[in-house]
């Protein structure tokens, strides 16, 4: 009998002990990730912000606090124009991707059973593979000796290869949409799936035509998916490095390529830090404004990659 009593006392500790145990177990659960993120995300980020105020010369980077890098980044037309161009590419990529993805998302949600599962899987598959590889594959398609030129010449539409298929902004759009469009299709598909079919019935019963039902019921209710997908694609597109480097050509660089150049060519680490901060702040500001407007946490739990 006594052992049972002891066990019961053990299993049901007094209130304070229980609270303390719960607090400690919470520390044990959250602690490792918090420490990790603190050391390897927050501290390096803080250090980058600090270094963005330093000065790089040919002798190295020295810690004197000054605003020179930011003055240059925001006043020089070189950086400012590139930032605007990068944002424009981000917006256009998002719009193209939205226009192409919405009908596919809609199509997928009208399917049933095995057909639906198979086509969803077929949609996912290409996006599960390296984006470096999926960007590279456009080189032998768009290049001078590429598939497209060979095809057009074989058909007789052109007599010599078209040089403008690659190394321009159009090729960047093609590359970015090809690589990132799933991030648009998926959240839209998920939000259309969530719409209560009885709403459609109700609208139809009340005499609404299909086009009208789409405009007044389905489109507004799939809006969260549109916002989530647009944010994801925009964020990915403005951060693009690989696509402009491979498909954009000499004048086709974007902001990330300029950041990279500070480390690879100019050896100006302080400027690289400042440009990194500028890009991050712009991206974060856009995310916060749009996110506040659309409910940011929902954006991320719905917009996740699978």
């Amino acid at each position, binding site marked *: 009998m006594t052992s049972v009593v002891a066990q019961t006392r053990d299993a049901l500790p007094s209130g304070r002990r229980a609270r303390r145990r719960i607090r400690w177990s919470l520390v044990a659960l959250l602690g490792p990730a918090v420490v990790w993120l603190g050391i390897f995300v927050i501290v390096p980020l803080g250090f980058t912000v600090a270094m963005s105020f330093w000065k790089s010369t040919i002798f190295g980077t020295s810690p004197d606090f000054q605003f020179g890098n930011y003055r240059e980044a925001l006043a020089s037309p070189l950086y400012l124009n590139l930032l605007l161009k990068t944002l424009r590419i981000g917006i256009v990529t998002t719009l193209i991707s939205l226009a192409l993805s919405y009908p596919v998302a809609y199509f997928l949600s009208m399917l049933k059973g095995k057909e639906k599962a198979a086509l969803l899987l077929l949609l996912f598959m290409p996006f599960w593979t390296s984006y470096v590889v999926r960007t590279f594959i456009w080189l032998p398609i768009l290049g001078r000796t590429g598939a497209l030129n060979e095809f057009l010449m074989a058909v007789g539409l052109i007599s010599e290869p078209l040089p403008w298929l690659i190394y321009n902004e159009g090729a960047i759009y093609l590359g970015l949409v090809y690589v990132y469009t799933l991030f648009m299709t998926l959240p839209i598909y998920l939000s259309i799936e969530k719409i209560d079919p009885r709403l459609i019935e109700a609208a139809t019963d009340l005499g609404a035509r299909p086009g009208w039902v789409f405009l007044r019921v389905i489109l507004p209710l799939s809006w969260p998916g549109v916002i989530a997908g647009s944010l994801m694609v925009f964020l990915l597109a403005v951060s693009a490095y690989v696509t402009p480097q491979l498909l954009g050509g000499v004048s086709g660089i974007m902001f990330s390529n300029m950041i990279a150049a500070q480390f690879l060519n100019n050896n100006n680490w302080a400027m690289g830090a400042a440009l990194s901060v500028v*890009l991050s702040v712009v991206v974060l500001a856009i995310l916060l404004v749009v996110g506040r407007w659309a409910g940011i946490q929902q954006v991320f739990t719905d917009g996740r990659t699978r």
Partner: protein
Amino acid sequence: MSSAAQKMFAASPRLRAALWIYAISFYVILYAPLLMIVVLSFNNSPIVGFPLHGFTIRWYQKVFATSEFLSAMVNSFAVGALAAVVSTGLALLLGLGFRRTFPLKSALFNLVLMPIVMPGIVGGIVLLLFFGYLNIRPSLYTTVLIAHINWVLPFAFLTLYPRVHNFDSTLEEAAMDLGARPLEVFIHIVFPIIRPAFIATMLFSFSLSFDEFVRTLFVTGYDRTIPVMFWSKIVDQLAPELPAMAVVIILISATMSLLGALVSQRASVRSQYVSGE
């Protein structure tokens, strides 16, 4: 039982047909470049591109005889496995913690997701600057691994958290009432049920790490991962074995993700069964 879209399209077969045609062309454009690269990988020509000069498997032989490729493969598998284990482990602990309420919970949520939001190149640059200042040389098991875990952790958390969150807590309470300690409850009740989700998350994490490039490029030391090695081959010269290499890389990451999806399918069936959703 039918979805909203199904309802809509039962009514208008013409629109249905139009959507089918559109979707088929969408899938064709999605897959045509991939098929093209498979064709080119067997092309018997020293120049990447057309015209086709007959069938050969020599580019595949060359890929598997290239020591650079083989060592990059070993590096990518090692980093991918470590990144998957660490980030899935951290994500599981976080997920269990997030079932409770605590101060600054939403701030921590945003912090966990930050590496997704940060521009990719910045994710690498901050580590380059920080470790450079500490005089720690970039290498596979320091900077590259850290960059990969930073990148994979938020996805692992987003994949695992819903599974842990939807878990039926009456099972745990029953075990607790019968006198089990929290750790025993976790080992005997919680973990066996979420194990498929845990394994699926590890496979997804591996494939994310395997494909990671822009965060890795600037913190790579002597040992390259597969995407970094592939990149240097594109930038140096368009080597003729590149299409074959691309096909091998695609096959590996697609297989990993497909495995992840299969396990995750099983996991969701099981969690529905357990949580009675």
